[in-house]
């Protein structure tokens, strides 16, 4: 800021300077405040989570209260459901994003879809749980891993739609024109040129979607439910890390609470690793 020597003594100037110092001080303080929460949360999480971390966590099933055990079945359950959700949600999201960016960039349908997609992006995930409950659990008459995976897929779709569209929009039109000029039909132009140019960004979108759903609890509570034991049957209730954390943390048993912390640490590490990878891959990506 330029300071004028002649005005330095006037009371008005002093008052303005004071106000500036106070508000700028508040900006520093606010940043310190925000960052200290991150440090506090991660600090406690590491402290509590690491003490319970051992090989057993990854090799044994969830224990009954009072016994020792691990988190193998919820970890596998989470991995399988996340995988299936991404498998179902990603193609749909990429295709829809392609329409928004390539075919109907300016038409009416696109602006409606874009608007609705943005709302779905931040809609309460518990409502998605209720939706899939009505759609699948109530119809089939039982909770199932499939229902959990579909619920997660519903959350994946808007994330992928959004990033796919954003990334394809960034592809320069000259590339498309070049492709068209050598006689490539539009669909091949999109698949061979646009997708390739936007690939890193689109992968980023998928990673962000995985990060988003791997911590989701609410949509699984009454779709996949929980399962104390190992199951290979996706038609049966399947346990997942977030739901097990929820159940164990609220229980009165000490060992369950410890396992909950360990599970929380595992999820957080996975999510942070995913989002950091995504950020490096995507570079300076504009966020919603």
């Amino acid at each position, binding site marked *: 800021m330029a300071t004028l020597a002649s005005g330095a003594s006037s009371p008005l100037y002093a008052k303005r300077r004071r106000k500036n110092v106070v508000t700028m001080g508040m900006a520093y303080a606010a940043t310190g405040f925000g960052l200290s929460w991150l440090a506090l949360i991660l600090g406690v999480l590491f402290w509590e989570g690491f003490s319970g971390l051992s090989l057993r966590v990854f090799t044994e099933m969830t224990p009954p209260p009072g016994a020792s055990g691990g988190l193998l079945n919820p970890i596998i359950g989470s991995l399988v459901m996340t995988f299936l959700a991404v498998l179902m949600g990603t193609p749909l999201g990429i*295709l829809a994003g392609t329409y928004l960016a390539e075919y109907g960039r300016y038409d009416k349908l696109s602006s409606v879809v874009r608007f609705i997609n943005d709302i779905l992006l931040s809609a309460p995930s518990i409502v998605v749980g209720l939706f899939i*409950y009505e759609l699948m659990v109530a119809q089939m008459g039982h909770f199932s891993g499939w229902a959990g995976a579909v619920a997660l897929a519903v959350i994946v779709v808007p994330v992928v739609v959004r990033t796919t569209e954003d990334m394809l929009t960034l592809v320069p039109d000259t590339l498309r024109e070049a492709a068209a000029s050598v006689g490539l039909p539009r*669909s091949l132009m999109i698949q061979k040129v646009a997708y390739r140019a936007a690939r890193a960004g689109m992968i980023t979108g998928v990673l962000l979607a995985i990060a988003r759903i791997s*911590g989701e609890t609410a949509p699984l509570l009454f779709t996949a439910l929980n399962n104390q034991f190992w199951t290979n049957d996706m038609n049966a209730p399947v346990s997942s890390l977030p739901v097990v954390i929820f159940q164990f943390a609220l229980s009165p048993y000490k060992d369950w609470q410890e396992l909950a912390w360990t599970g929380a640490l595992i999820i*957080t590490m996975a999510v942070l690793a995913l989002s950091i990878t995504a950020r490096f891959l995507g570079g300076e990506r504009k966020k919603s």
Partner: protein
Amino acid sequence: MNSSGERPVVDVAFQGGGVISAAEKVDRAKVLKRLRFGDNAFRHLTRAAAVAVLVILSGIIFSLVYGSLPAMQKFGISFLFDESWNPVTEKFGAIAPIYGTVLTSLIAMLIAVPIGLFIALFLTELCPMWLRRPIGIAVELLAGIPSIIYGIWGLFVFAPFLQQYVQPFLISVFGNVPVLSNLFAGPPYGIGILTAGLILAIMVLPFITSISRDVFDAVPPMLKESAYGLGCTTWEVARYVVLPFTRVGVIGGVMLALGRALGETMAVTFVIGNAHRISGSILAPGTTISATIANEFTEAVGDIYTSSLILLGLILFVITFIVLAFARLMLMRLNARLGK
């Protein structure tokens, strides 16, 4: 780019009457047909996928309405204003969860909005360039932490801390102040409306920060430099140039964060206490719509109970839909002004 529809795939060589044999002509026509078919198929496929997004939304609305019909028929509009929540007599009302949802979100916004704006101000005006990216990433990591982590942390770390230190302090300070004494009445439970509101504040802080930073960054440097050139202080530039210019965007960001806060489930469920009553004190346990659903849905017996919970979900969806739609409209208005 021409976007308004398909351009047919045509064979230029074919039309131009180039020198090609008859057999080649047939071959080219075949390939052309295949390409044309693939082109159309892909276009319709993407279009169908885009429509599927709309189908998901209508599916959500339809299933919620369908599932909540029994409760709607039984309680009618009075469901919205009834405080009772009794699974035994099957009498349900939504006002207590709605009250808790609105109040916790309000507390969260009161705290997170000013702090978020100040952090954004720091990031755009004060922070040295080399620090911007790391701090920006740190704030966004805060946004990436799953809500269940906030919940378990709130339950085991934050709530006991509040119970031991903050709440007794609040009670003793405001105990004799009229109006405020009611707000901070009662024993320090640790868990309750205030705790949930504070956790929500920490959770939405990154959203507000990251959107405000983005819109602050979009202010044309010329405007800011002119103000600095007139001798404005950093605060004056922020207050009288940046903020007015970005107002719609900031409001949009705040509404987006509000939408998140209203619908947040797990973090709140851990620390709200799940008590179906409206109490004047924000230290008392309460409940929110999402916490009620999360806590009770799997244990709900009987059609009316389940249906009432789904009706709660519908109410939550309608509220957040309105808030989020408003947020998007605001952000769209800012983008229109920036000519994006």
